[in-house]
């Protein structure tokens, strides 16, 4: 028996990475080890008041902090019977678009592109292609500008609170975002040219099930109230509040992340899943982008998640511009927050974080303090699907040398954009 071990996907206290065991050329076992911080962090919110929860959980991840904050608020408001205004819904959706723009820019330009160009890091890419890295930085800054304006800070928003927003953006601030979004149109074109020019990465093909938030009546990811799974052309939905019937989490011995399966099969969440579940949400511009990248939906290639992120980046820029135009046209009212009265109850919040479905669920006592919490991250939901794709990658590879297999395995893992390493970031000497 031989073993391929990649232990640098996570950097947390020896946890981590990928292990593939081979009997000859046959794969006997695949493990994707996850230090899944959110699970352990649930204990930190027990006993805390409803207005303390979102600021705490937003720190689960700096890249995904708006999604954790807003998903938490959604769960809390559902538990406490708070109905926010349409303006708050729109501003929260805009905040999520900002997060998606900066997160996809980070992943595509600084984490995925080096793989395709066979360079060890974004720093090596920057030495040869500085314009490409600057392009990524400009798009990331645009996302951060939206987050800072709406959320009050570039990361860990403080302005989104139970019942609404602490303060609303001024007309001048919205006009500044609109200008930045319009100026980013050439950057979006250049981004598509870059992604379209990358070498093909079709080394793993297998039928894949996809799950994403869905709403028949809305084009918003924040407002979706159903979960849809698409598998072999069949579509099934479950109410968002009944998320456990989708995730069916089971503990596994080798990972801190429970594995999610639907009808016994793994499923993938994230950009490729959203495009598969919600084709009607794609704007005309991003449909063109999809064609330029030769992205065919449904896809049997997990590497297509990178292309799907590029399509979503174009889509997010268009959606954000539409939202900002609407807010400028209608005028943003300083409407204050909806009053919150503590009460006992349970609430579920689900949104689409950049890397997929994000679930928060809290049970409150009659004083408005958390009794129990459940947080399921996209990376945890993707763990079983990723292991399936890692196995197929090895099985389908014509090259059997360890270096090539390791490179392919890491590319597959990165294509999922997993959120493993951001919970802690100690410098190691």
């Amino acid at each position: 028996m031989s073993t391929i071990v990649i232990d640098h996907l996570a950097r947390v206290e020896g946890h981590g990475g990928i292990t593939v065991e081979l009997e000859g050329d046959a794969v006997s076992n695949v493990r994707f080890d996850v230090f899944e911080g959110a699970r352990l962090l649930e204990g930190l919110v027990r006993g805390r008041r409803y207005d303390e929860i979102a600021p705490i959980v937003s720190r689960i991840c700096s890249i995904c902090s708006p999604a954790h904050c807003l998903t938490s608020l959604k769960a809390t408001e559902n538990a406490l019977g708070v109905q926010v205004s349409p303006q708050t819904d729109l501003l929260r959706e805009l905040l999520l678009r900002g997060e998606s723009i900066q997160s996809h820019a980070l992943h595509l330009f600084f984490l995925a592109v080096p793989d395709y160009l066979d360079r060890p890091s974004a720093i090596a890419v920057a030495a040869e292609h500085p314009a490409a890295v600057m392009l990524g930085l400009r798009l990331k800054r645009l996302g951060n500008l939206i987050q800072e304006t709406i959320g009050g800070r570039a990361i860990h928003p403080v302005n989104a609170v139970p019942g609404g927003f602490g303060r609303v953006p001024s007309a001048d601030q919205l006009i500044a975002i609109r200008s930045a979004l319009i100026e980013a149109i050439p950057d979006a074109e250049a981004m598509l040219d870059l992604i379209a020019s990358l070498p093909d990465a079709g080394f793993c093909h297998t039928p894949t099930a996809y799950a994403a938030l869905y709403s028949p009546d809305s084009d918003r990811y924040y407002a979706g109230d159903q979960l849809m799974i698409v598998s072999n052309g069949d579509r099934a939905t479950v109410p968002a509040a009944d998320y456990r019937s989708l995730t069916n989490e089971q503990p596994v011995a080798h990972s801190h992340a429970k594995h999610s399966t639907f009808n016994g099969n793994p499923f993938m969440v994230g950009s490729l899943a959203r495009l598969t579940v919600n084709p009607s949400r794609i704007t005309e511009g991003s449909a063109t982008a999809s064609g330029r990248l030769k992205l065919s939906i449904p896809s049997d290639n997990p590497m297509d998640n990178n292309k799907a992120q590029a399509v979503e980046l174009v889509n997010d820029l268009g959606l954000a511009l539409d939202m900002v135009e609407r807010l400028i046209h209608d005028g943003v009212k300083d409407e204050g927050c909806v009053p919150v009265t503590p009460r006992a109850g349970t609430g579920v919040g689900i949104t689409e974080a950049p890397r997929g479905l994000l679930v928060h669920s809290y049970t409150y006592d009659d004083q408005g303090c958390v009794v129990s919490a459940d947080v399921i991250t996209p990376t945890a939901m993707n763990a079983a699907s990723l292991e399936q794709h890692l196995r197929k990658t090895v099985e389908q590879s014509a090259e059997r040398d360890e270096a090539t297999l390791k490179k392919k395995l890491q590319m597959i893992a990165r294509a999922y954009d997993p959120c493993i390493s951001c919970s802690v970031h100690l410098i190691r000497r």
Partner: protein
Amino acid sequence: MKPDLVIGLGNPLMGDDGAGAAAAEVLANDRRLARRVDVISADTDVLSCANRMERRRRVLLIDAVQGDVPGNVSVLRESPSVDGQQHAHHLSAPAMLALLRQVTPTLRDTEFIWILVTVSSASVGMQLSPEAATAIPKVVERVRQELRRR
């Protein structure tokens, strides 16, 4: 030129990893200091504060570093070594800074100083270990010393 910038790094939910953020919080609450220095917390995303670094003579980054002597405080005038692309989801703080300096000409003349507090490990929790908590006043004093240096 803008005032010197102090950036606290680290995740306050991950125990001693949040030492940099804790020190930055102390400095941000010092009103006399706040009149001549900008202090922010970037948690684990240095890229998010890229535009805040520009047009500064000095940027001080406070971070936790894993080592054998918990509570030790050290100053690095060269960035810690960059560990390549080891992470699936993120770049390390030194890698992000190296990347920014490589592609942003206006950052090349800025002096970057790392104030590092040694911790033995980081695990889930909102409290610093006694060693790390004891080191915070030392970190704050080292930052003040650096800011007094011309």
